[in-house]
């Protein structure tokens, strides 16, 4: 069996349409949203701020705390019961591990940088969208970062290697599938999140990661533009 064309007409290395905006939650120290296809993630950063209870404090540096949550009406199927699940707890943890390598929290001992990710709409690729939004929000919050973090899912659908699997591809019935969310520091090419479920050969995995690298570089350009746009629009208003 071969996977000939993608249901939504995309090329195999094409992502869904992306939209990003920074500074959309006034109360937060930094915020952003990242929309890819029908998956939409908001991220808000509060911090560095006071950390309680005291036993969580690290006297050598600040800590990063991430929370990923799907709004009850976000799923394309049944309502999602509020309160998180084991899945959302795991995603919170890998999100934290994906973002930590770019941050330098030595200037903020005993404090915490809280990242809250909320999704009003999800249709595949939600953890990656969350990471993309969170990365912009952290930069918006003025934190020291070596690089941004971009994330995308790559994988295999039957005999093709694809970028940004959509909902139908994730559950493709006519052949083997591998779904591989990847997060990277786009300018250094270093991987900070890598998960996989499905079946794939080592060679195909290499190809998929190459495609992820390119896609993440493209996403970085979008994130960069969104961050600069927050300040540019005010400049354009002056003209």
């Amino acid at each position: 069996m071969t996977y000939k064309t993608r249901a939504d007409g995309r090329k195999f290395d094409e992502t869904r349409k992306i939209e990003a905006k920074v500074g959309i939650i006034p109360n937060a120290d930094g915020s952003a949203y990242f929309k890819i296809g029908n998956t939409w993630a908001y991220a808000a950063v509060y911090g560095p701020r006071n950390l309680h209870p005291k036993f969580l404090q690290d006297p050598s540096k600040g800590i990063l705390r991430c929370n990923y949550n799907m709004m009850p009406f976000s799923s394309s199927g049944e309502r999602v019961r509020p309160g998180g699940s084991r899945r959302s707890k795991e995603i919170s943890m890998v999100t934290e591990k994906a973002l930590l390598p770019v941050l330098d929290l030595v200037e903020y001992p005993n404090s915490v940088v809280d990242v809250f990710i909320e999704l009003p709409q999800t249709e595949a690729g939600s953890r990656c969208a969350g990471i993309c939004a969170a990365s912009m929000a952290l930069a918006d919050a003025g934190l020291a970062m070596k690089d941004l973090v971009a994330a995308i899912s790559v994988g295999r659908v039957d005999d093709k290697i694809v970028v940004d699997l959509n909902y139908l591809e994730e559950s493709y019935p006519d052949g083997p599938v591998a779904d591989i969310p990847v997060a990277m520091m786009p300018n250094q090419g270093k991987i900070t999140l890598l998960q996989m479920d499905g079946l794939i050969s080592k060679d195909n995995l290499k190809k998929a990661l190459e495609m992820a690298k390119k896609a993440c570089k493209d996403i970085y350009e979008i994130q960069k533009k969104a961050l600069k746009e927050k300040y540019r629009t005010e400049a354009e208003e002056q003209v």
Partner: protein
Amino acid sequence: MYNELKNHILKLFGSNTRLDGRSFTEYRKPFKVETGFTNTAEGSARVILGKTEVLAGVKMEIMEPYPDTQDEGSIMVGAELLPLSNPEFELGPPGIQAIELARVVDRGIRESKCIDFKKLCITEGEKAWVIVIDICPINDAGNLLDVSALAAVAAIKSAKFPKFNGEKIDYKEKTNKGIELGDLPMSVTVIKIGDKYLIDPDSDEEKVVDARLTVASLSDGTLCAMQKGGDYPLAAEDIEKMIDIGLEKGKELRKLVK
């Protein structure tokens, strides 16, 4: 804790003005109601009032009717005060503020009878629709009660039933059938600081509220739900005046959901 702030607000009252220059019965700007921001939910609405922004979504589920109302469906309202929206909000199960918010919004909708529960029944005694409304603030800059109530009503108005074949719901296929709605409830929270009555409090004003009264009303001025909050008591005259303000502002809100 907020004595300086309260004193300053009371001083501004002397000049008939508030911290941001508004009059006592003026809503912040912008004030927008948008529906259908998502296509995964059966209905959705987003309300922006000043810097406060709330999302509401409607999901529809099938339930077995309750034993004493075998021919009726139901509604359920949930609210989570997301830590994303306010540095004071903590992670965890809904606290009393979230619970009060959900229940006050629920009462406004339920008691207005804008949804006829009998029309939600599919098979008596066996299957009925339950309309589940979830409220998620994106930014809390004050007056979550009113913004949430408005978002919930707008979301219900825009909702469409998913396809149901008698056994299973297919959420991916929406029908063209909306919820048959009667007169919608409009919710206005009137606050009292000192001896003045104000609507649409911002975050600073909320810190020094003496008492508040949330009034939900129908288009002919009938009251369908009320909730008093705040640590101080209200005299009967206060309540009468606050209801009048609530009714008048309710008319203004109704135009936004048309």
